[in-house]
């Protein structure tokens, strides 16, 4: 106990000196713990909404398969777009929570070599790839496949075939057999409009066994049903992970509270910067390639990006608007930052708003006939500027997120396997 008190005074001396106040020093541990617990509650609510909307998608898909028509196809597409709203907001929980990050590839892997799944237009898609022997495998058309010396029995298309045999087959990440984007491809088909207006135009008759277009309509229906059943199953698993005693919640709450707070900021910064600003947005702008679009079949990228960014704002503000219209609110990282440095909190809130505004301008642009794949066209400087503004806003908020990490002294916390906290003896030795 005296030892403990000595450390306490050292820590206080530290606060009074040049280094910033520690989160745990200015705020009671209970408050920080409440922030982390509420963050886990937000995760549970967001994944629960994603599950609810995925179940609605699955029913719409069953309708499409049993009575294929332009109307049932349109309903299934609308259900897919609705299902993206909560799911994209859940992505702020991905980085930092290893359980979520390991699972994510099953539900939202991207980009995909869609020729693995179904027919493609070979003049634009090509027939082979350096990296992927399964580039044009077309499972829907091929009940049995022999590629690279191995034979694959795909005579019956089941969820297990997709998840255990096909997904990332041959270790190639773009062999995406499951998840939102595989379903998106099966609902829309390839977007053959390049960088002009228009999305995929798969006809409903691709599912009509009586009047089949595209061939193998029964197998296509089997594939789509299996993929949407898997999505529901995977989301059920993630919801359970965030319930009381669930694995993701337990992993989070078992961490020292400082690491719990660092999990929130890690998710915010990693999603905003490397993933959303870089991989999913800026890269497409630099490549002028419509394949480099997150929702490239449906042209729903603007909404996906909008809700991705919204999820980051949610976890900072400790709030979430549920799909039933109710608003969840609770102890927030924002309040903790405000208690230590009101100006910093104000700045980050403003920047998160600016990011939402920039995303809204992309949404408006799409509504006015210029979706993401038209904005990235070479020579479309106004469209390019709209996308760049979104990227810049995300970068700005990431820099401020770094300041938050620094101000709350979460920076030396290594989220995965933390020497500084798990092995405290190693720290003062330095």
């Amino acid at each position, binding site marked *: 106990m005296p030892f403990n008190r000595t450390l306490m005074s050292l820590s206080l001396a530290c606060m009074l000196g040049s280094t910033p106040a520690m989160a745990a020093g200015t705020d009671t541990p209970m408050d920080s713990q409440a922030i982390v617990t509420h963050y886990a509650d937000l995760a549970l609510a967001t994944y629960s909404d994603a599950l609810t909307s995925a179940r609605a998608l699955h029913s719409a898909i069953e309708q499409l398969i049993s009575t294929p028509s332009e109307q049932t196809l349109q309903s299934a597409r609308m259900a897919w777009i609705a299902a993206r709203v909560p799911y994209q907001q859940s992505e702020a929980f991905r980085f930092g929570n290893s359980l979520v990050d390991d699972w994510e590839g099953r539900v939202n892997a991207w980009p995909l070599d869609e020729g693995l799944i179904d027919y493609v237009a070979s003049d634009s898609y090509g027939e082979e790839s350096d990296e992927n022997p399964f580039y044009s495998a077309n499972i829907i058309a091929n009940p049995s496949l022999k590629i690279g010396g191995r034979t694959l029995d795909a005579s019956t298309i089941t969820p297990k075939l997709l998840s255990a045999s096909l997904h990332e087959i041959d270790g190639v990440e773009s062999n995406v057999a499951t998840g939102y984007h595989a379903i998106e491809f099966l609902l829309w088909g390839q977007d053959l409009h390049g960088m002009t207006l228009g999305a995929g135009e798969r006809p409903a008759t691709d599912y009509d066994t009586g009047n089949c277009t595209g061939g193998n309509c029964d197998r296509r229906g089997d594939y789509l049903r299996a993929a949407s059943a898997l999505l529901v199953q995977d989301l059920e698993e993630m919801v359970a992970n965030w319930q009381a005693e669930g694995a993701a919640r337990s992993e989070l709450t078992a961490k020292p509270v400082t690491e719990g707070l660092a999990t929130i900021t890690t998710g915010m910064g990693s999603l905003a910067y490397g993933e959303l600003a870089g991989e999913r947005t800026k890269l497409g702008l630099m490549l002028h390639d419509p394949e480099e679009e997150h929702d490239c079949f449906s042209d729903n990228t603007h909404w996906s990006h909008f809700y991705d960014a919204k999820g980051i704002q949610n976890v900072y503000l400790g709030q979430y608007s549920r799909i039933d219209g109710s608003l969840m609110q609770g102890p927030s990282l924002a309040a903790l930052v405000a208690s230590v440095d009101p100006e910093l909190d104000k700045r980050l809130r403003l920047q998160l708003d600016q990011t939402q505004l920039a995303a809204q301008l992309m949404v408006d642009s799409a509504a006015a006939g210029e979706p993401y794949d038209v904005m990235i066209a070479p020579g479309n400087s106004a469209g390019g500027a709209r996308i760049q503004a979104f990227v810049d806003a995300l970068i700005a908020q990431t820099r401020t997120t770094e300041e938050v990490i620094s101000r709350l002294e979460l920076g030396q916390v290594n989220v995965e396997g933390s020497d500084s906290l798990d092995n405290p003896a190693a720290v003062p030795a*330095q």
Partner: protein
Amino acid sequence: MHSFTRLAQLLAGSGLLLAGLSQAAAPIDWEAFNASTISGHIQPRYQQLAHQSQTLAETTAHWCNARSSDDFNQVQQAFENSLQAWQGIQHVQFGPVQLLMRNYGIQFWPDRKGITGRQLQAALNGPDAGQYDDAFFHQASISIKGFPALERLLYSTDALSQLQRHPHACALATAISTRLAQTGQELATEWQTLALDDQRSENDDGTTASVPDLSLNLLRALVQPVEVIRDSKLEAVLGEDQTGARLQRAENWRSGQSLASIASNLEALQDLYAGGEPSLDRILRTQGATAQADQIGALFTQARAQLAAVAGPLAVALENADSYGQLRALSATLKSLDEALYDAMPAIDAQLGFNSRDGD
């Protein structure tokens, strides 16, 4: 359990305090580190890139006049010299190379979707083929502006006959290499003129931080590439076991330069670590992190020795169980080096922040 948690937090806090005290006793001369790293590391390396790329542009243009099979190897040799000059400064992803997306334009890689091949075909055979002027490059995709596109033009299986017979292939190769030379020259010049302002320890917002922005950028340029080399240049190629190895995921596999590129990277990183005046190595030692400095130095030496022992090129090395094992060992060394570098950052009070690969 709770008391342990609390104790851990307090210890973490006191660790920071101790680091703070030792800094007060021996302040780090970041300005000297910045200045010597710019003049001794960054500027000469960009000059080398400018020089080798200029030679490449001239050699390519000259060869395209006669297109003789006899001296085509001179073009390839000039390409390899220029590529390795780039690999010697690839780790610097801030400053002038970030402007106008030059870094991506010099090298778009990895290219998981084969975009370079597709867009290169469009540039060679599309409706506007043959017009490779400034306006073309201004609008062009990053995939066809730099080394990867040029490597395809010079090393694809039918590269020589394509360059000899295709109406536009030689023109495009010349245009890309000319553009690389221009970019190299611009980078070298801008680092000469801009660098003076950037060496100060003031940050953009006018505050004086304990670690200046430029120093943090240099630290990122040292630390972050180690993981890139390991993940993208080695692990993705090595696969889970030798039967799962995939040459075509390697950087520069067409030109057979994959291992040479990693060697250039490691040489450059060790120079950045140990070459300054004061060097980071010495800075760590003055902060009392002697054991860590020893470890980092030893891991650099070990990694470079392991790589040097692999009989190349990579295509051959992947087929041989011994050399495959050596590359695995190199990967393990790089993992230790990555950890050692990150672990050393608190000793100099450096917080590197998020990097663009965090989302991968």
